[in-house]
């Protein structure tokens, strides 16, 4: 095995995200992944397909069109040579993030040179928790609070823990997310990473998905104020200040820095480090806090070194808990500058790579930024954080 070496994120793509039961209702989950993998290979003819050493694809529910070891099935369906292996991976919402950190670890260790990592969730075909059979001990022995398996309830719990995070603040953050996505669309920032997907409909004929379906650019505070709070009477968590139920897939190319140089591909980000951490499952949304602290500590960095944040917006309250903890304003432009999951949607296991795609874009546009993080909360009480360095920053400094 080789010595530990730098790992880089080369490029990432994703399908447009759809609302559950709508855009992709008659399109298969594995076909969404295949579109992403093929787009990556099409964008990078420098990479001989047989040099891909691993295809790691995450899905929270690994049955049906997300079953049969989806990393392997999609590798074969994409036309990669049969010599390219693949596997399926699951860490719920952080599936794709874990696909990246796992393959990156393999690259750092010298076991791979190039990997494809990504994720998919077709929440139309696989409603959250489909087929799960929680052990009765969880409740009998009070190992977790009964609310822990209902993500919306854990978000309400988080509002309880941090009373200063009001519904008004959460709604304001949600409106900002919608506005930033609308602006990013206008600026052509989000579309560059989208791979078009042919969508089948027996009723309407074939269509072509070229844009995210969930965004509601006209969202107002007034409109949000009137929404129901489905998880608790007179609660704070609404469909408007949370990510929806969505279908979509993502994939990215991870490589050794030396391999990228050999193939002549300029990296978009260099991985500095990562960490996952557990918290009380009943407040799973706070997970990014300890995960980020752990990652920073291990990397020898402090929060002040981080110039850009991509934090998954499963719920506005969970983002606000993170920002409050680190003393960052909730409308700070260094946080989710192109909007987030509240507007774009959150097809569970796919979202980690979407965060990386958007951070890579921030890095490209802002060479003055050196470090950024992608972070997300994870069901059953976890958080995950990856710290990235901007290669454009180093180049900038050389000048």
């Amino acid at each position, binding site marked *: 095995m080789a010595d530990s070496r730098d790992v880089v994120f080369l490029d990432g793509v994703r399908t447009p995200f759809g609302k559950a039961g709508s855009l992709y209702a008659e399109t298969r989950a594995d076909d969404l992944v*295949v*579109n992403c993998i*093929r787009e990556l290979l099409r964008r990078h003819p420098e990479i001989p397909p047989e040099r891909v050493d691993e295809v790691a694809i995450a899905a929270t529910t690994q049955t049906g069109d997300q079953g049969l070891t989806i990393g392997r099935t999609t590798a074969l*369906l*994409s*036309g990669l040579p049969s010599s390219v292996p693949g596997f399926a991976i699951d860490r719920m919402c952080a599936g794709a993030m874990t696909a990246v950190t796992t393959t990156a670890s393999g690259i750092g260790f010298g076991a791979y040179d190039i990997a494809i990592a990504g994720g998919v969730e077709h929440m139309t075909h696989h409603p959250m928790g489909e087929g799960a059979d929680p052990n009765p001990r969880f409740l009998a022995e009070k190992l977790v609070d009964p609310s822990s398996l209902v993500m919306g309830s854990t978000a309400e719990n988080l509002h309880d823990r941090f009373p200063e995070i009001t519904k008004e603040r959460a709604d304001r953050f949600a409106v900002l997310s919608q506005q930033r996505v609308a602006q990013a669309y206008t600026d052509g920032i989000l579309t560059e990473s989208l*791979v*078009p*997907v*042919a969508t*089948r*409909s*027996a*009723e*309407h*004929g*074939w*269509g*072509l998905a*070229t844009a995210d379906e969930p965004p509601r650019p006209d969202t107002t505070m007034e409109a949000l104020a009137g929404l129901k709070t489905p998880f608790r009477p007179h609660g704070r968590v609404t469909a408007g200040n949370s990510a929806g139920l969505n279908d979509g897939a993502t994939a990215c190319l991870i490589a050794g820095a030396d391999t990228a140089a050999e193939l002549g591909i300029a990296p978009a980000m260099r991985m500095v480090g990562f960490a996952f951490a557990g918290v009380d499952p009943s407040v799973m949304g706070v997970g990014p806090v300890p995960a980020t602290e752990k990652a920073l500590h291990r990397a020898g960095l402090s929060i002040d070194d981080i110039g850009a944040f991509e934090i998954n917006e499963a719920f506005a309250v969970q983002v606000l808990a993170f920002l409050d903890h680190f003393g960052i304003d909730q409308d700070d432009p260094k946080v989710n500058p192109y909007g987030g999951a509240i507007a774009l949607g959150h097809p569970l296991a796919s979202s980690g790579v979407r965060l990386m795609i958007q951070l890579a874009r921030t890095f490209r546009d802002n060479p003055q930024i050196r470090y950024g993080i992608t972070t997300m909360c994870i069901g059953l009480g976890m958080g995950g954080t990856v710290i990235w360095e901007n290669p454009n920053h180093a180049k900038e400094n050389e000048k």
Partner: protein
Amino acid sequence: MSIATGSELTDLIARASALTEVEVVTKALSRDITLPYGAGTMVLISLDNGLDHKRPNTFGPRSLGELNAAIDAAQARTDIAAIAVTGKPFILAAGADLSQVAKLTDVDDARAIARIGHGVFAKLHRSSVPTFAFINGLALGGGLEVNLNCQYRTVSAGAAGIALPECFLGLVPGWGGAYLLPRLIGVPNALKVIIENPLNNNRMLTGPQVFELGIADAIFEPADFLERSIDWAAKVISGQVTVDRAEPDPAQWDMAVDMAKEMVDEQLAGAAPAPYRALDLIRAAKDSDLETAYDAEDAALSELIMSQELRSGLYAFDLVQKRAKRPAGTPDKDLARKVTKVGIVGAGLMASQLAVLFARRLEVPVVMSDLDAERAAKGVSQVQADIDKLLAKGRINPDKANRYKALVTGTTDQSEFADCDFVIEAVFEELTVKQQVFADLEKIVSAECVLATNTSSLSITAMASGLAHPERVVGFHFFNPVAVLPLLEIIRGEQTDDATVATAFAVSKDLRKNSVLVADAPGFVVNRILIRLMSEITRAVDQGTPVEVADRALKPLGLPMSPFILLQLVGPATALHVAETLHDAFGDRFWVSPNLKTAVEAGRPGLVDWSMEGTATLTEETAATFTIGDQAITEEQLRDRVLNALAEEIGLMLAEGVVAAPMDIDLCLILGAGWPFHLGGITPFLDRSGVTERVLGQRFLPKGVATLP
């Protein structure tokens, strides 16, 4: 008549729709697609009948009405940059709804159908907005012509079943195919698609072949075929891609058509009109404009729709597609017993062919036995050589080759048959020998093991008569070459039980053969008919008709080969042997030709000699050995005799209950002897030419079943 548009077209659609109550309607579903590169909006029309890929989209009048409305709606818009047509998963369209065509009774209705297709498709051809076809899968006949009428085409590398099979059935590609294809890809290639392939067992094209021929301008892999096709279309519209097509060479045009006509004459001698009409249309395409060409196509289509040959063709197609897959009179398939090991008695050429087939299709151990160890070993090495040939051709991979070779063993010890579930004998064609083989086997195999015989003429009942378990004996009659001809006659002896027959049909299905259940009558079906035909020919020759005349007599029928070529292929000795068996059974209807005996005794390869031009003749040397009478008859007289004989023999076979229905006779002749679709096998031709009524006083099938009503 000019190409129908506007209300004339919608009136035609309404008129044709009124002719049929039921139509599985293929919808034309329109969606707006936002194109990349700022190329604007495309209206994408998906053809979808709402059923799965086993029920392909078709174009009946209502379906064409749907497409017409979709095209009209798109063309009425001023905000679109392109119109495109594609299919449902795996299927674009299988062409015109033939179930309706087979019921048309009026030439004007037929013409209406022709004009509707042209009217709708021409809108795509003449569109001022660019039109694209994305050929995602199966595209047959009109299903390909809709694409040819578009201005640009892409094809999926995974597509299969792309063809213009009209001439195979008895039609012409008359919704633009005969005009557009030669102008698109040149005459030689167009002739391959329109004439050669249909006449060559209806061969079809794959996506890569479609691209190679220039029918499609671009090819994309199936994984994201539609996405890439839309992207490509946007590049064409935005000028990033220009489509260069080679200009067809008009200088070669007439010569190529002339050559194709010679080939068609060789095969059909004018017996089927469709390929000739297609050739005329292709010839005229060189100088015609669209209006003139489509008018000529309308005329050809409407005449052919009202032709006897098409009705026979549609009947034959239905037999091969449906009756061959659900044979008449078979017992419940659940009665079939599992076959996990096969025995073959004999190790000769036939046995080796059978061994390869059984090993490859059933993938179970196959034991070949011979009394002589050397011959058994020779049989096995023949099998191995055949498997190596399959490997060399890329038909199987090295692992499969290893597997099949390991499955086939040879032995002289019949005890190795003990655990076989199915043993077939392929030994010398003599009843006592075969009886002895079965008697010996019965001491070794289980009481339920099926004992099958590949006899071509001996009685199954007689063969089983001395056995303790005669109920497990069944006839399993292959046609040579075994790997190629799809027919298997399964013969039920008097005592054969249902489980045995069911097992035989199950094995046949696994062997991918089409089987017909036949009663235990001498010669079964195919041999009885062919030998009866041959009897009339040899009798006429013996009585004084020149062999040149005799060999030409059946030419106007368009059979796959002349009688003397057939005789040579079967082998004079075999033909004589079967003729003798049938003569013994049925008397003088079957003629044992003394001159054929002479030829066999002399060890000659056939009855006649062949001239330099390939016509039948007798050299003086051969003629000197023959005894020939002085009653010459003409080709027409001999043809009448043969047709009368066929009608008589088939009438007798049906009366004897050899098969369930005339359809089974036709199916056997189509699949086992390659008799043509334009004859419908043979009974539709005998009916429509009045022979059956003359000979039997009634038809085999009512009017309208396999003929015009």
